[in-house]
């Protein structure tokens, strides 16, 4: 192998690729600009909507409760709620979003409470709608407070201490390190993103440098130079690999910066409001992934990117035109994402057999790595098996460059 010729081909392909608008967009613009722009635009938009909704008074309707004037009066004076006249079509109005929520107070509610009989109020809401959720939350809080006040006054009258309601406390404590919680929550997502970025970064240059060149007639020009087919294959392969790795690294950097800034600016506020339960947990877990594990997961991209680059070159070279290459390569996005998604399923854990299944092995390992689990035996096995597949892909690509029927397919 002539390393100088490989470098000459690589350097030319790099210059050529950096002047290609399509590749530049997929390699630099999307990861470095689009991700932050989308994130910040989405963050700003969500924050604005949530803030506005929280500052508004929500229109609600009270159904029944004519014999419970105290509650009706308390609801009427609630600063966040505005009672509208009662009509029979409240369900439709909630669905049409002209009314945010409704509460049904049964006949004889006050009397039932006074006599200690069971009674219930029903809140009508539009599940998943922000303003309806806010109104329902306010109603829910109002009636809980009212119930608590009633209980406390009854206890006071009978001179029973408050502690009878809560003879003991139940607390739950997380013993898992924060990065493991974070890893479980988003560990499955990270390999999906990395695999997708690595593949999409390699896709356009692989098609352009092979099928594209065949279509434009520049492949024959290159083949009639004294450079060997192996040197040509390697020069082009290194270019595609560069594009794949650059896409992943730039995306990782851009995402890290965006998340860092975004969490401070928007995420806390928006998440806390939209979903106080799971959202709160996710918020605290989001940045807590193992940094060493994350870097190791990025390192695992190398054999994966080699595999994708060599495979894509071999496949695209077979195509007569860029368009034909697109029809071969585009469905593969789903094929490579499937194993990554399989890795997110509960119960699918890394073992020696799965460590030899390409893509799935890296996805499962990434999940463990970002959780701070470092099983060096599996890491070595996966690195070796993925490298073997990558080498096979490279051999296939070189063989394709030696086949007349592929190079001069018409």
């Amino acid at each position, binding site marked *: 192998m002539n390393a100088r010729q490989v470098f000459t081909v690589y350097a030319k392909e790099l210059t050529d690729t950096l002047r290609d608008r399509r590749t530049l967009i997929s390699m630099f613009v999307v990861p470095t600009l689009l991700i932050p722009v989308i994130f910040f635009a989405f963050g700003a938009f969500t924050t604005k909507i949530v803030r506005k909704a929280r500052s508004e008074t929500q229109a609600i309707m009270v159904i029944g409760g004519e014999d419970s004037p105290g509650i009706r009066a308390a609801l009427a004076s609630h600063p966040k709620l505005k009672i509208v006249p009662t009509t029979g079509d409240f369900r439709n109005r909630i669905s049409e979003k002209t009314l945010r929520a409704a509460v049904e107070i049964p006949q004889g509610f006050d009397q039932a409470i006074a006599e200690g009989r069971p009674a219930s109020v029903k809140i009508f809401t539009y599940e998943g709608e922000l303003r309806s959720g806010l109104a329902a939350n306010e109603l829910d809080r109002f009636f809980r407070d009212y119930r608590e006040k009633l209980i406390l006054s009854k206890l006071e009258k009978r001179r029973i201490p408050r502690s009878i309601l809560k003879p003991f406390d139940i607390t739950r404590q997380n013993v898992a390190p924060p990065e493991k919680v974070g890893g479980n929550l988003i560990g499955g997502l990270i390999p999906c993103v990395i695999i997708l970025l690595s593949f999409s970064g390699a896709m356009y240059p692989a098609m352009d440098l092979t099928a594209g060149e065949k279509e434009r*007639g*520049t492949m024959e020009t290159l083949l*009639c*130079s*004294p*450079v060997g087919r192996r040197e040509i294959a390697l020069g082009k392969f290194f270019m595609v690999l560069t594009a794949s790795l650059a896409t992943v690294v730039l995306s990782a950097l851009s995402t890290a910066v965006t998340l860092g800034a975004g969490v401070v600016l928007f995420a806390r506020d928006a998440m806390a409001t939209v979903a106080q339960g799971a959202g709160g947990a996710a918020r605290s877990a989001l940045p807590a992934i193992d940094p060493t594990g994350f870097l190791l997961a990025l390192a695992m991209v190398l054999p994966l990117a080699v595999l994708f680059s060599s495979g894509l070159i071999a496949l695209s070279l077979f195509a007569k035109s860029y368009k034909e290459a697109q029809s071969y390569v585009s469905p593969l996005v789903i094929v490579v994402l499937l194993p990554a998604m399989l890795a997110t399923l509960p119960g699918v854990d890394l073992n020696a057999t799965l460590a030899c299944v390409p893509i799935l092995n890296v996805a499962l390992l990434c999940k463990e790595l970002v959780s701070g689990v470092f099983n060096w035996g599996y890491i070595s096995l996966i690195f070796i098996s993925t490298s073997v597949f990558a080498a096979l892909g490279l051999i296939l690509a070189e063989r394709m460059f030696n086949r*007349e029927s592929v190079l001069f397919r018409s």
Partner: protein
Amino acid sequence: MIEARQLTKVFHDRKRGEVRAVDSVSFTCHPGRIYGLLGVNGAGKTTILRMLATLLQPTSGSARVAGIDLTDNPGAVRARLGFLAASTALYGRLTARETITYFGRLHGMRPEEIARRTETLAAELRMEDFLDQRVDRFSTGMKQKTSIARTLVHDPDVIILDEPTLGLDVLAARTIVAFVRDCRDRGKTVIYSTHIMSEVEKLCDTIAVVHGGRLLAEGSHEELKQRTGASDMEQVFLRTIGVEAGP
């Protein structure tokens, strides 16, 4: 020098079965002479030239280019020849200078050697005005001049030109033809493939008529005219391939 002996190329096509694109073609091209391959589209000219350029492997037969056997050392053959065909396009995103430099590097030339050669070729082909412009903005003539410069950057002993004036205007075609003559005068072995009869008559020392993958006749244009009793090259060609009857 090029010596082709019984060169044959058979393609296997799913629909048409076995296609004999080139059938036992033998010829010799000498240094300081232009050897013309004359034939219609699909006659087998490009396949013969692609075999000589080691892009395709002969099914049978052999050939030596500059004394090197095609199959023994294809890389060395490519290092000694310059191949230009209608199907060998240029990189649109590179400038003419970058294109010439790239192929100079692929031929293992030193940077100062490439720079010197680029200036010489640019002057001979009148390329100075567009040497540093991107190829995708070029006219057909400018592209062809750049293609010739990249073909000859390493000053090869053997030059193969497949339809080099295709699609060019009269002025650009004249520059190319003059340049090819100049290469012959400098002792290069030139194979010139075309379907333009007048060009062959003006330029080539020896003419071979190729049809249906076979070499049907060979000689100077005067010899061919005498042999066929034709008054011009078009008549020579039509009578050789059997479309028109001789006297």
